[in-house]
């Protein structure tokens, strides 16, 4: 347990990472706010969100969705010491009460480093997040 586990064998271009599904709700939002120190009321206060939210309702932290995409990447890589970089664009809001799916696919391998395309997808099949990770194999 003291060393990182090895990444999955036979990683090649096109390999899909095991995906995760996550519902966002008031509990996940408040836990993320407390953990990250980001107490923007847009993420837990309907009165505030009703005035400023792009959806008119409470939306999840963008960084919550990035954290989940990074979780997919890091688990596949075998631990945080193998993660070189992760970057995302937040393309749609993630309303509370909905489920999103986070996944990835290897798009390139060079000099022992895999590039992974990361996605976050909502219940309608629209992307809430698009990104890229680089991991050491």
């Amino acid at each position, binding site marked *: *347990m*003291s060393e990182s586990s090895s990444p999955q064998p036979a990683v090649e271009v096109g390999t899909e990472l095991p995906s*995760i599904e*996550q519902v966002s709700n008031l509990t*996940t939002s408040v*836990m*993320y706010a*407390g*953990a*990250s*120190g*980001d107490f923007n009321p847009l993420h837990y206060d309907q009165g505030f969100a009703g005035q*400023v939210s*792009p959806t008119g309702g409470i*939306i*999840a*932290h*963008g*960084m*919550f*969705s*990035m*954290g*989940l995409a*990074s*979780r997919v*990447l*890091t*688990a596949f890589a075998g*631990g*945080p*010491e193998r*993660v*070189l*970089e*992760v*970057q*995302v*664009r*937040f*393309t*749609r*809001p*993630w309303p509370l009460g909905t489920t999103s799916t986070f996944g990835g696919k290897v798009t390139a391998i060079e000099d022992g480093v895999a590039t992974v395309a990361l996605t976050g997808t909502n219940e309608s099949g629209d992307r*809430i997040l698009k990104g890229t990770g680089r991991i050491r194999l």
Partner: protein
Amino acid sequence: MALNPDKVGTTYPTYTYEVSREKIRDYADALGETDPRYFSEGDDCVAPPTFAASFTIVKGGQAAFADPDLGTHPTLVHGAQRYVFGDRPMRPGDVLNCTPRIADISTRGSNEFMVTEVACVFADSGEPAVRSEATIVFLGSAPAAADAKPATQEGAA
């Protein structure tokens, strides 16, 4: 009010962040993480990569948002985020020196885009721990907003 492009390149005072086991655990819990090392009481405890969010997003933006010459305003969304990591993961007890800098200011349609970089190094060795690049989208404040075609809203969170 528009952002002041002369502020590109400005650095703000370095702040210190001490990584703790409890904050790593809270962060891992909030993301439903299962790697036992994130919850370990032992020397093998490490932080998940995006644990960096807990000391680069709000703390990293504080000085810029308090700068009266920069011209930020509250109608904004987080458009994009990038983390580049150093050679070793963050562990409990690590002290990080974090320096925010305005890396870029640009305009697209009626929106303004500001990239705030936070370079975090391990205080004991000076080695890079993580570099954060946050793209904040300020909605509707670009100087040419009246004439410009409205931009697609990229940011969402």
